């Protein structure tokens, strides 16, 4: 693969340091995947100091990280560990007693019919959401990065859906998708087409929920990409343009590599948040139609824990989801890091 475009440097003394050119500048993202073997290699460019400086750095790091870590451990990890424990039990959520059942919840989940439906719903939903909202977010950020009149207003409009809560959108979108009174039905009727019944047919319901979620969360990818675009190196682009590179080449070879960290970040966070969708589904379809037409993993956790009263089984589903996400994310992180190291 030819190295990204880098020839002249524009005015102003800048060292070309496009992120993806792997150089001898210490790649700090190394530390994500590499095990901390025998102390980190002497980093380049560090001012000379004695080992007490190293110790001081560790203390400082500890101080800076401690408050956040304590909060996360107490309020996120403690319940998570509790959840692991619960997944091996058969606990009715109102019951004062709890009984140990070993792996039977897991076996049940892996062998039940409805698990396939739930997993399939989650996969379809997630893949569609991640793919579409990230591409659209980038496209819109690029479009609105240009100096066009009225772009502030349009930026606010694109961000506005993200501002509304998922539950409120779920409720409000009945006026979009209702087969008798909704916006879609009205537009289709003017074109002479009958509106599909989004709420009664499983495939359409999943489509509706997916579209609603993408509409709502577009602003997230958009804003992150927009911020990233602000920090990019205009001089490189200029230089490439001067050299006669086409727009597409400039996009592929100059811009995209700079956006790699952002794309990497978004692919992880959008994936994680879309797998955990709940509010929109709860407000729009309650997981239906036909029982689990739009039930995804987190909704199944809610359903099993609070509706079917089986907190142990719900904990099992949550644990499976967590482990899958953990594996997927670690994999993503490693792939991204390998890709950025040539």
């Amino acid at each position, binding site marked *: 693969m030819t190295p990204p475009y880098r020839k002249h440097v524009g005015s102003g003394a800048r060292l070309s340091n496009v992120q993806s050119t792997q150089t001898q500048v210490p790649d700090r993202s190394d530390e994500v995947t590499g095990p901390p073997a025998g*102390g980190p290699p002497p980093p380049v460019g560090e001012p000379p100091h004695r*080992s007490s400086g*190293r*110790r001081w750095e*560790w203390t400082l790091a*500890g101080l800076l990280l*401690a408050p956040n*870590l*304590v909060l996360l*451990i*107490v309020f996120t*990890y*403690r319940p998570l*560990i*509790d959840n692991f*424990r*619960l997944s091996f*039990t*058969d*606990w*009715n*959520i*109102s*019951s*004062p*007693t*709890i009984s140990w059942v070993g792996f039977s919840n897991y076996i049940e989940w892996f062998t039940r019919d409805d698990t396939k439906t739930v997993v399939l719903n989650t996969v379809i939903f997630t893949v569609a959401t991640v793919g579409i909202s990230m591409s659209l977010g980038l496209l819109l950020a690029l479009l609105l990065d240009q100096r066009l009149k009225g772009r502030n207003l349009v930026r606010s409009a694109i961000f506005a859906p993200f501002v509304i809560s998922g539950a409120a959108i779920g409720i409000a979108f*009945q006026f979009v998708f*209702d*087969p*008798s*009174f909704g916006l879609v039905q009205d537009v289709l009727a003017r074109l002479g087409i009958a509106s599909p019944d989004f*709420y*009664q047919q499983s495939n359409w319901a999943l489509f509706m929920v997916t579209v609603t979620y993408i509409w709502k969360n577009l602003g997230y990818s958009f804003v992150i990409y927009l911020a990233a675009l602000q920090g990019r190196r205009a001089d490189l682009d200029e230089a490439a343009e001067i050299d006669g590179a086409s727009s597409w080449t400039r996009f592929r070879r100059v811009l995209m590599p700079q956006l790699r960290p952002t794309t990497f970040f978004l692919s992880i966070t959008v994936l994680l948040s879309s797998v955990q969708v709940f509010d929109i589904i709860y407000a729009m*379809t*309650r*997981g*239906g*139609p*036909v*029982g*689990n037409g739009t039930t995804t993993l987190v909704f199944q956790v809610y*359903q099993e824990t*609070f*509706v*079917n*009263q*089986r*907190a142990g089984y719900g904990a099992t589903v949550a644990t499976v989801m967590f482990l899958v996400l953990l594996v997927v994310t670690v994999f993503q992180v490693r792939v991204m890091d390998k890709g950025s190291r040539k």
Partner: protein
Amino acid sequence: MNDVTRRGFLGGLAGVAGVAGLAACAGGSTAPASGGGGGQAGTAGQIEFWSNHPGTSKPVEQAIIKKFEAANTGLKVKLVDAGQNYEEVAQKFNAALAGGQLPDVVVASDVTWFNFALNKQITPIDDLLATAKVDTSDYVDALFNDYNFSDKHYALPYARSTPLFYYNKDLWKKAGLEDRGPKDWDEFKAWAPKIKAALGNGQVALEMADGSNYLDWYFQNMAWTFGGGYSKEWTPTFSDPNTIKAGQFLQGLAKDGTVKFNKSPEADFSAGLAACIMQSTGSLGGITKDAKFDVGTAFLPGDGNCPTGGAGVAIPMNISDERKANALKFIAFLTNAENTVTFTQATGYMPVRKSAVDLPAEKAFLEKNPNAKTAIDQLAKTRSQDNARVLLPGGGARIGKGLDQVAQGQDVATVFKGLDQQSQQVFDSQVKSKLPS
């Protein structure tokens, strides 16, 4: 030197983890060994009432509370916003059971009360009622006995509703039908062609809620009129030939386009898109306001086959006796004749006391609102819901899913057999062992 320091740092991290571990054990891990955590603590003389304000009843509840406090100096009631629907109240109550102060009174719906009772988290109130000298015979029998479990009552009826048959009088006239509801489902089937002939474009004869919106509640009426039902006591009866017949009847209606399923039939009905619907009495107020035509109400088709629904008020088990006694005073007051009239007139629920209909305020109201009278008269023809729906965890959702499948054309016998098996399995694993022998 470096090694020591690094070890020290890592040791620090481990220490944090250790603290968290201790926090997990000490700081209330879920599922306490017995009874719910700090349930004893409560403010003296204060009654905490957890309500979802069914039917947007917060102002009415506050008014009733004021009257109670005036009549009982020394007792204060704290009204807590416990959720936007019955499921959320149950969720909040379950969280409190796992560790936290318990309320004194909690709203429990037809599908959530039993799990609390079975797991001994709400109190049987018969003794408390006797001590407070409450005349329980004045409660509408079906409504009061809905909360009967092994000869003990676990809640008082509060916000109770039944389904009602609403019909569009104008369309009825156009179809040449008498101004009344069908007396049973056979008659409705006979009427259906006439209704359909009178319909315009985009209109449908009957609309019913779908499986995610309590079709399982309404369908009990159909199942019962055909002689079947979801269960007899604890035995699931979905595969009973009569129940299957009812299912096939519903499927037939769906196939020939007589019935359409919707998440909110009342919206379509009020807009004139459906000639008739089966909906909760709670929607009466809204429908009357929204409909631009004459709204007729009738008993559900089939005589004496109307299910009840809605919620009651219960008292948690693990609070002090003094708190229980005060709580009972409050719920007895909340559901007395005068207050049930005030409450139901403001919300559209059914008065829970027999003597309520004789009160002048109610008489005057019923004269002005004959449709409300239909609902109240139907109370005499109600029967308790089937165990498989209300007493088995997740019963409603399970049956709703099956009915959705039936409505979309799947083989009724197969679907219902599946419901039999699932219901039996849930009973065996979750309920049977906890039943008193």
